[in-house]
């Protein structure tokens, strides 16, 4: 069963074309790596998949429904890590997660479990603004998985993570469909089933199947 079906996804910023007629699909439980140089359109594509941006043209179905029309309902099933951490610096890591737990309508018990899973226990009571960049990235990933989403959309999730990062991401991805933008081919090989190459907003070749190392 397809989790994502993207047809002719096109996005423009004024006269500039960021994505040009992108077609692809992702099966349920599959992990897709989006690779490409800076400015290739990876972030725009991921923002569209996370329903943060509406494509200028094209249709996107996520879990069998029109992603934009049903975006509010779908957001309960999508976890998104973007470039900006989006934390409240005066609130502790735990308070940040508790706040987003309320907004997600998730079970409050998920907060403690997520803190444990992301290795944030020691810094849970520290203000988010005083966390290291790596810990802030862990907090962003924690926020994305807090509501136990079926689809994860991760924009360079390994940024600032330490050597444990790939193992941590592997644990987070388990049992979920995921689309991950990265520059790191080794990370893509380790975490993903397939890659999708982008260059200047266009697909490069056909999505390739990777040898999955789990």
């Amino acid at each position, binding site marked *: 069963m397809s989790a994502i079906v993207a047809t002719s996804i096109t996005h423009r910023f004024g006269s500039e074309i960021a994505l040009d007629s992108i077609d692809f699909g992702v099966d349920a439980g599959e992990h897709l790596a989006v690779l490409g140089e800076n400015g290739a359109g990876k972030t725009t594509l991921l923002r569209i998949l996370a329903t943060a941006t509406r494509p200028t043209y094209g249709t996107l179905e996520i879990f069998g429904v029109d992603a934009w029309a049903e975006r509010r309902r779908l957001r309960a099933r999508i976890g998104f890590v973007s470039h*900006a951490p*989006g*934390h409240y610096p*005066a609130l502790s890591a735990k*308070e940040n997660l508790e706040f*987003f737990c309320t*907004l*997600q309508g998730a079970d409050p018990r998920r907060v403690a479990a997520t803190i444990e899973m992301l290795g944030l226990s020691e810094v849970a009571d520290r203000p988010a603004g005083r966390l290291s960049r790596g810990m802030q990235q862990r907090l962003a990933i924690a926020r994305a998985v807090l509501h136990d989403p079926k689809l994860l959309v991760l924009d360079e999730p390994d940024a600032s993570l330490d050597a444990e990062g790939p193992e941590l991401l592997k644990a987070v991805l388990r049992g979920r469909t995921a689309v991950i933008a990265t520059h790191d081919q080794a990370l893509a090989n380790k975490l993903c089933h397939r890659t999708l190459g982008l260059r200047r907003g266009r697909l490069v070749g056909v999505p390739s199947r990777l040898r999955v190392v789990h």
Partner: protein
Amino acid sequence: MRPLSVAWAVARKDLTSEWRTRELVPALAQFIVLALVIANFGFQFDSHNATAIAPGVLWMALVFAGLVAFGRAFAAEREQASLEAMLMTPATPAAIFAGKALAAIILLVACEAVLLPALALFFGVQVNASVVLTVLLATVGMAMLGCLFAAMVARVKARELLLPLLTLPLWIPFIVAGGQAVQAEMGGGSSDQAVALLLDFDILFLVLTSLAARYVLED
């Protein structure tokens, strides 16, 4: 029930952040006291005309304090990219907006707790429960409008200039009705009609801003 819990969570988050950083309220309270000191020296008033001048000073101080308070409400969210994080949840934009407006109202009420006693002290006017009620009613409507326009201009570089340009014309009804009500109350007259008008404005703008919040908050 869920929109209410979302709105309260958003408001509590803003108030907790302000309590820990103390960025806004102390500065606004100082600004209000300074404005009253300047007005105290700038206007030639005595016991006969103080009730005519004090309401004008009250609304001037409140309007400018409000512009600063509401301007910060969404600018910080945009800078931290946390507004998008909130909008990426199933919570409705109207509930998020209501929470932001509620926090802004409470912060401005905290400033009014400094403003009203200081006004009584500097101008020797009577600040009774009716004056407090009038100011609170005006604060609600002004906060709803102020927060709506603050959300609208938050992504614009010239937001400090745009916010007053958009907000002040729509605050005029509150200033006119509030000014009349406070002047009547300080002079010992009846303010029922002006207070009823303020209540009508509150209901009108509460409904309009809640409907508009969705289009303003989402890109």
